[in-house]
């Protein structure tokens, strides 16, 4: 056991910190949340800056345009990235965290040459076409059909929960190529060009009022056979390569931001008088919420959980790195992260007080608190619900029999 960062890691840390301290303010504040073209260009522009400064594809092999950094430096990077309040990678998420790594692991040389450099430079945006209206937790029951005619697949069906599909150029698409095979055996992984007839995208308005998620309707959309990743009907295995990223390293960047969320809550508690409900009233006699020992204990406890979760994330990532297989800790990391994030978001609602019932401006701090709170509900549903994660832990790690 050795938890230290090496001298090289620390040198890398100061290099990253220096660059972020000038690049983040230079890139400016994000555009309004409802201006999606502006959001795409803000986020891809940031990806381009990361690329030009040498911070794109840190985990990717150097021969494919990445940096090939050791995991310790990827973790250092995430720590500094969160501490600097750098822009969320947003529209670049699927490309850099899912599709890119899948092409690296399973793609052909042509596919890698065509896509990887553009993902790294922020020139192409990807979305995910996995879930369907009838295939949520039971993803392998998906029905979107692809039939092969010559050197093309013709795809018809419907996808849902495709994040930011309305601003995407490509979709990592799961289709059924053999309807007669067992459900896991008839699935194929395709690269779908979103800019073509037969692809219709409809945004879904979610409880936070935003529209990240989309439905994608496919009506005889065309995919060249050359865009197939892995063998026909071998898509479930290819998918699991992607899901491994989703349950492992991809969460790390969110988890590290919980640290600054805890500190934000402390600052809020120090600034806020108790809410009207406490009966203490406001004015001269009001005391800061921070003076309540019960609240201090709660925040201290949340801090303990956040720090331990970051250690567990480090453990999960370094374990996956040393064994080459995903760590069984992945489900525990995802489960704890999503529930802890919700707890923090709910506490922010309480501390903010009556302000949450009506915000003065669409993008002020209170609106952000409300938005974060409502958005946090997706985290225990997306990428395997908390219930699915608990089943996975009980069955795969603790060896409980499958059943209901």
């Amino acid at each position, binding site marked *: 056991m050795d938890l230290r960062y090496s001298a090289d890691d620390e040198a890398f840390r100061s290099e990253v910190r220096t660059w972020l301290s000038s690049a983040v303010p230079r890139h400016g504040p994000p555009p309004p949340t409802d201006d999606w073209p502006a959001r795409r260009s803000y986020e891809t522009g940031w990806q381009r800056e990361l690329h030009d400064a040498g911070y794109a594809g840190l985990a990717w092999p150097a021969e494919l345009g990445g940096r090939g950094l050791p995991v310790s430096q990827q973790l250092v990077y995430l720590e500094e990235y969160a501490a600097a309040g750098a822009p969320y990678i947003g529209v670049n998420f699927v490309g850099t965290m899912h599709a890119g790594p899948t092409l690296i692991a399973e793609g052909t040389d042509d596919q890698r040459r065509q896509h990887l450099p553009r993902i790294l430079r922020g020139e192409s945006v990807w979305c995910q076409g996995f879930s369907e209206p009838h295939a949520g937790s039971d993803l392998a029951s998906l029905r979107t059909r692809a039939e092969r005619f010559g050197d093309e697949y013709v795809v018809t069906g419907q996808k849902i929960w495709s994040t930011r599909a309305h601003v995407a150029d490509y979709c990592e698409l799961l289709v059924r190529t053999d309807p007669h095979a067992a459900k896991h055996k008839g699935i194929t992984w395709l690269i779908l060009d979103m800019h073509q007839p037969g692809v219709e995208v409809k945004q879904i308005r979610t409880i936070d009022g935003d529209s990240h998620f989309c439905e994608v309707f496919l009506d005889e959309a065309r995919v060249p056979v050359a865009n197939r990743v892995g063998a026909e009907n071998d898509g479930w295995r290819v998918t699991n390569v992607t899901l491994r990223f989703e349950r492992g390293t991809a969460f790390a960047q969110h988890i590290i931001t919980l640290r600054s969320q805890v500190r934000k809550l*402390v600052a809020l508690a120090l600034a806020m008088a108790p809410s009207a409900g406490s009966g203490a009233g406001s004015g001269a006699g009001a005391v800061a919420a921070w003076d309540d020992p019960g609240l*201090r204990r709660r925040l*201290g406890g949340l801090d*303990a959980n956040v720090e331990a979760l970051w250690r567990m994330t480090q*453990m999960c990532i370094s374990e996956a790195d040393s064994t080459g297989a995903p760590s069984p800790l992945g489900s525990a990391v995802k489960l704890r992260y999503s529930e802890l994030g919700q707890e923090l978001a709910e506490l922010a609602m309480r501390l903010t007080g009556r302000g949450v019932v009506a915000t003065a401006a669409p993008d002020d701090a209170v609106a952000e608190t409300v938005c974060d709170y409502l958005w946090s509900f997706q985290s225990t549903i997306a990428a395997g619900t908390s219930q699915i994660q*608990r089943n996975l832990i009980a*069955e795969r790690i603790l060896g409980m029999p499958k059943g209901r």
Partner: protein
Amino acid sequence: MKSSEGFAVETVAPSIMDFRLDDTQLGLQETIQRLCASRAGLDRIGEREGLPIDRTFWNDLAQLGTFSLLLPERNGGAGLGVVEAAVVFEQLGSYLTTGPLTWTLLAASHVAGAATGDLLVGGIDEATTFGDDRLVVEHAADLDALLVLRSDGVFLCAGDDLTRPHELAALDPLTPVGRFDALPEGDRVGDAPAARHMRIVGTALSAATLLGVSARALEVARTYALEREQFGVPIGSFQAVKHILADMYVRTVMARSAVYAAAAVADDPVAAGAGVDPPERAVAIAKFLAGEAAIANASAAIQVLGGMGFTWEMLPHYLLKRAWVLEHAFGTSDTHALTLATALERDVR
């Protein structure tokens, strides 16, 4: 290396960001586990009730180097660190090993005879214990000496100076507790930094022991869920039971991450990447999570074992009671949460 049967010490080339136990640590784990299983196994735990501490077993623990782990080799120790001690104490916790284990280890550097198992040393930390609670000491009647951690230093009260304790009705059937009428001043055997260091190590090792209790509770519940059948199937095939077990697992791995990180920080704050993590903060995190995990997991084990879990015969109540004894040593979860809050406030202001 202490003796031919003791903990072997090897130099291992440092690797970077590696959470795996190295060969030395795995060796320690196996050695202590084997000893506990053969000499104080959990299957006959009821027979240990009401008996004085098994001094033969205690001597065997000492022979293995349990109490001298942290002493430098020139002083007859193993020259190992808090991480290695945490590995050992996690195992001791999981076997509900009886006796003032943490305090005897802490005393090894100040009291001749503690490291060798000849003397049983108990203790009290006055910084985290208040009022008359300071007079309540585990294993009081069996102690040869008592260490007291005060803000200005470490004080040693020899057995002769201690009044005879009043035996109390103990919560944990395996941890007798006594109350002294008063604590003597004692001899000052260490300065304030020494007291601070002992408090850090003691907190880390109490957390490691609690981690062992949590892991054992999970194991007991898991085994029962696989064996016990209702409605014609093992109860572990029901999602309602699976989800209890999954939460027990998550609490255990969270506590484990925090305990070993804290142990590494206690060994070397700089090397463990603890720029913002002074040892007090790291051990507070560990003790908070391990305390909560042990109590919650032991409680959950009672629930999973159903009616059997409510009986004296089964293990869960021993685990729960030991968890509470440890929860109230070296600061409760509440105390540590407040410590963390104070550190956060400093950070934010």
